[in-house]
């Protein structure tokens, strides 16, 4: 079935008739089954993306009236097409992604190109920021991220005056990511920001959530979060960052240029061609009764970046 399944036993889990009729063999069978269960459990524990606690300070960002979404929900309902197109697949499939070792190569129009190991980034000063995340599919969550302003990282590589945009490239490993084996999007996933958007203090280079490192399905080990834009702008599992002169063509712009623009600012006045953006469902609510705010409620901070721009044309 497409998106959900009822729990049905696998053929292999049903005890064969001759086994349950023969008590001794049944006991032997049960022992083997028990051992298999224990092994299976151990294997799961070993492969499930192990998150580690982080140390951080409390970031100063606009305070939201809604409480953070339960971690259980934010880590089991994900759009991460490299691991499958359903919301549940990433949590099931993402444990195969190897996040150690991990490097982020930063280049392009910078004075000091450099490759950071993930441990270098984790050793930097981190802060927790609770942001609302608004998906283009008209649902939202409130998530406590941990990270640092992207501008802090950028200052270490010294972008030149030629740098007008930033391009983020996500990891694409077909052997570890089942979705990458089919051509759902033009892999690797790429996203981009205009220079002033990237350097805005709200733009968060994100290494963790809920006080711990990112689970794989949420974009471990490092991703970008721009809270005033739709969720797909927030590239996950980043391996390359390029400062570039031209506006990059992102994966979603290639997939559906009339549906997914470069800016993708949250905007109740501009509908997605296939649905309205006026309301959203603050998960796990049943009713899509929350009125979507322009720039996802961060207008006071970011609206000035777009003064004079026609946001319907530059959606």
């Amino acid at each position: 079935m497409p998106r959900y399944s009822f729990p049905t036993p696998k053929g292999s889990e049903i005890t064969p008739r001759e086994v349950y009729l023969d008590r001794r063999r049944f006991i032997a069978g049960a022992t083997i089954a028990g051992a298999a269960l224990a092994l299976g459990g151990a294997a799961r524990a070993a492969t499930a993306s192990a998150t580690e606690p982080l140390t951080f300070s409390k970031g100063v960002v606009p305070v939201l009236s809604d409480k953070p979404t339960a971690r259980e929900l934010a880590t089991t309902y994900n759009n991460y097409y490299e691991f499958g197109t359903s919301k549940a697949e990433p949590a099931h499939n993402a444990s195969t992604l190897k996040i150690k070792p991990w490097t982020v190569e930063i280049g392009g129009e910078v004075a000091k190109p450099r490759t950071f190991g993930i441990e270098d980034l984790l050793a930097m000063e981190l802060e927790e920021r609770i942001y609302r995340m608004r998906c283009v599919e008209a649902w939202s969550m409130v998530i406590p991220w941990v990270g640092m302003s992207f501008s802090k990282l950028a200052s270490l590589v010294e972008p030149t005056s030629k740098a007008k945009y930033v391009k983020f490239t996500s990891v694409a490993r077909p052997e570890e990511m089942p979705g990458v084996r089919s051509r759902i999007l033009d892999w690797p996933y790429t996203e981009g920001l205009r220079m002033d958007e990237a350097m805005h203090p709200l733009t968060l280079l994100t290494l963790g959530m809920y006080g711990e490192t990112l689970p794989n399905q949420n974009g471990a080990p490092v991703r970008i979060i721009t809270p005033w834009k739709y969720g797909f702008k927030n590239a996950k599992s980043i391996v390359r960052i390029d400062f570039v002169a031209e506006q990059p063509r992102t994966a979603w712009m290639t997939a559906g240029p009339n549906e997914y623009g470069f800016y993708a600012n949250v905007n109740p006045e501009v509908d997605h061609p296939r649905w309205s953006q006026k309301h959203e469902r603050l998960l796990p609510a049943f009713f899509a009764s929350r009125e979507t705010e322009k720039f996802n409620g961060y207008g006071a901070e970011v609206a000035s970046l777009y003064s004079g721009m026609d946001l319907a044309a530059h959606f």
Partner: protein
Amino acid sequence: MSFALPKRLIAPLKVIVFLLSLLPLARIAYAVVLDPISLGANPAETILHMSGDWVIYFLLITLAITPVRKLTGWNDLIKFRRMMGLYAFFYACVHFLSYIGFDRLFDLSDMTQEIVKRPFILVGFAAFVLLVPLAITSTRGWVLRLGGARWSALHKLVYPIAVLGIVHYWWLVKRDITWPLVFALVLTVLLAYRGFRRGGKKIRAAAS
């Protein structure tokens, strides 16, 4: 080749099929009342998708009855066709009500605007509207009132309904068209079988 079950088994079998067909609804109702978290982070979407999938399953089951009956010779199957069709309509109602309730908050003017503006909703809505006369005229009384020929002409509407339903699903998905494609292929086989048989009949008629 044909066979039939003993008559006395048909009624209990109908009861069983009726109850089995209610399981998806029971699953939804149980979760809503006692275990919402089992529907995931977006329970309304899960309900919308589950009910929508079951509309397509029941439409395809309804359309499979005649081919399977002809191929196996098990003529009793025809006695289950109305129930399957009505279940397609029933889950279409669940689907439509969850959409106008959870997504559109029962705001009828907003709903009307959305239906007109979004092609994928429009085709889904068209399929739903077309199902209504079929559900109403599904009784024996209506077969007699309309006469067999007119009745079956009317009920040929199920073919465009199934096509619209799958187009609705196809246009909804963002990138991964696997499931709409699977449903479309099954429907193609079921419709092609009918075309093939009709073609065969004509050839035989011409030869005689």
